């Protein structure tokens, strides 16, 4: 039911929405939000390369894709296996829709999952506190997601719950079409939990657009690992918004190891006094793949702390960008912020842009940042060669070691091994290296 491909994009989106509207689920409250999101989106349009934070994205590749979403719920879709994490509770979304049928029936104590639309109808206060995507360029894909979401998923961790079982959120894209979805995670006061989001599937030409909201309650501790391993033809755009209350701890690890184009935007607000976050990530782009990473971390309260560490590796004609902004707002005294972005360019045609931005609007803070873009260290390389190691293996080992910095910190051994295998698969000379690592 797609509109003419040559129609301007917003028009295509409007038509797709009109076609789909009668079939979108969720009650009147959700319907009203969707309509509001659509009309704002139609007024403002999607961002484009003139928008400062979107200039590196491979727009032609994104715009060539179908934006009209998959219409019917496709619960029958074949399910990719996903990572086996011992003791994990598995929650599956298919093309952005929560699928109870494919998800584990019994959840650990303190964890609940439901369709976002249904929850909104039942709990007006949820609708009131759920973030409404804004109009600035960073948030327009989130508006698009809001306009089309029918089911979405809401994951809640009860206050004081100490959830030991990993919560494994498996996002499956089924075909070559688009999906626009929302995911909401609420970690209650003083709760503890660990979530792994894994992205699989999506054929050539597929576009998945996801808006994720995470609220970390006062004193809560949340580990949030995100693993992108879509096939090399898929496109994925995501907008994450994280809000942390006082004394909360949030650790995000994001591995961008798949997709033809992968745009990941994060806005994280350290809203409560003493909130601390660690944001770590690794992207690897080989072939003609692209990763475009944009993060904004706002220190809004005193004694807040950030450690942000990103690693990027590009080879062949791969392109990557890391655009990381940290803002220490007025009043956020004693804020402590460290950012590091290290990048490796392995072959002459690969490209990485790294742009750290630190804005400090208050005194009495501790901030540092460092960015490097380079090739493998010749001294290290020569050392390995001088021990008889094959040059391709030596390069692979050093690249792997570079990635290990982040990979070694994955909390589950099974997930760590899995990511290590993915990392090896993204290396030039992967076949020679495989036996060595």
């Amino acid at each position, binding site marked *: 039911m797609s509109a003419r491909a040559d129609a301007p994009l917003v028009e295509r989106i409007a038509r797709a929405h009109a076609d789909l509207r009668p079939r979108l689920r969720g009650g009147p409250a959700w319907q009203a939000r969707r309509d509001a999101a659509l009309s704002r989106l139609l007024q403002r349009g999607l961002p484009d390369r003139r928008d400062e934070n979107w200039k590196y994205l491979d727009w032609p590749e994104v715009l060539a894709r179908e934006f009209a979403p998959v219409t019917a719920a496709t619960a029958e879709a074949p399910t990719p296996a996903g990572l086996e994490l011992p003791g994990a509770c598995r929650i599956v979304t298919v093309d952005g829709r929560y699928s109870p049928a494919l998800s584990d029936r019994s959840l650990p104590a303190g964890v609940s999952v439901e369709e976002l639309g249904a929850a909104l109808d039942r709990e007006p206060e949820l609708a009131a506190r759920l973030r409404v995507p804004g109009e600035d360029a960073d948030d327009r894909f989130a508006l698009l997601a809001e306009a089309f979401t029918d089911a979405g998923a809401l994951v809640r961790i009860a206050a004081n719950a100490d959830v030991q079982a990993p919560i494994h959120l498996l996002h499956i894209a089924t075909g070559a079409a688009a999906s626009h979805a929302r995911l909401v995670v609420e970690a209650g006061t003083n709760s503890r939990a660990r979530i792994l989001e894994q992205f699989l599937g999506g054929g050539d030409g597929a576009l998945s657009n996801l808006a994720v909201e995470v609220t970390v309650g006062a004193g809560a501790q949340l580990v949030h690992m995100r693993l992108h391993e879509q096939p090399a033809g898929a496109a994925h755009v995501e907008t994450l918004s994280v809000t942390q209350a006082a004394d909360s701890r949030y650790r995000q690890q994001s591995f961008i190891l798949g997709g033809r184009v992968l745009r990941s935007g994060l806005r994280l607000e350290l809203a409560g006094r003493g909130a601390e976050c660690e944001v770590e990530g690794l992207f690897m782009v080989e072939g003609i793949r692209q990763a475009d990473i944009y993060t904004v971390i706002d220190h809004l309260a005193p004694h807040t702390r950030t450690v942000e560490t990103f690693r990027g590796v590009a080879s062949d004609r791969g392109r990557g960008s890391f655009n990381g902004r940290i803002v220490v707002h007025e009043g956020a005294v004693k804020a402590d912020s460290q950012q590091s972005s290290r990048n490796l360019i392995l072959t002459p045609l690969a490209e990485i842009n790294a742009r750290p931005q630190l804005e400090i609007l208050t005194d009495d803070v501790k901030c540092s940042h460092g960015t490097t873009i380079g090739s493998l*260290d*010749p*001294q*290290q390389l*020569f*050392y*390995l*060669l*001088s*021990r*008889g*190691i*094959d*040059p391709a*293996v*030596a390069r692979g*080992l*050093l690249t*792997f*070691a*570079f990635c*290990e*910095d982040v990979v070694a910190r994955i909390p589950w051994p099974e997930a760590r091994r899995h990511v290590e295998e993915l990392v090896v698969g993204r290396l030039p000379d992967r076949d020679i290296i495989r036996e*060595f690592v």
Partner: protein
Amino acid sequence: MPQKGELILDVRDLHAKVAGKQILNGLTLQVRAGEVHAIMGPNGSGKSTLAGVLAGRGEYEVVSGSVTYLGQDLLALPAEERARAGVFLAFQYPVEIPGVNNVYLLKAALNALRKHRGQPEVDAFEFLGLVREKMKLMQMDESFLNRGVNEGFSGGEKKRNEVLQMTVLEPVLALLDETDSGLDIDALKVVSTGVNSLRGEGRAIVMVTHYQRLLDYIVPDQVHVLAGGRILKSGGKDLALELERRGYDWVRQEAAAA
């Protein structure tokens, strides 16, 4: 393995440049199986450059001259093939490689050698036994095995690790670049024991040092003075003692007069 007395290394009239600067100026040196050679000389005279050229370091450009190793043109081989053919360089400043496991590298290096010789990969159990034995010899704690290569090692620990690798890999030609610098008195003895364990009829050792004390522990067959990119004088162990007493100027003057 070469026979005792066989020519292992034959360097002739070697000229080499680094970053456009001429460092080696007609260096000639012959090393035979069973011999230990010590090279001494002022800072910046080209000792590490010579070691680097022999090991195949990329940034050095050989302008003229030749290096023959066991009858083959060493300069024609890339670094990794020189290593597989039995050339080992113990670095003056061993680099740290976090994320590459120390024992893993050792095993991969040994297997690269074995593969080159047409031998099967070393059995994991046998390998561990071998490494444990050599670590004992080097008085190294086994915890060093599972650290990143030289990662966070002290200066002396790095040198010990170089010699550990050498004793496991058993090179035909060992080049030791100031392996004694930065070692405490006990460590010097330990490292010397490691090097001496490798002394043998079919091997040769070339060691760069600033201190004649090392030569009390590893007694050389020949001592050379390298200055201005050339070997200016060669002699026996006594030459080292004389250098210790008199410095290098007299050697330069003698060479200039000749």
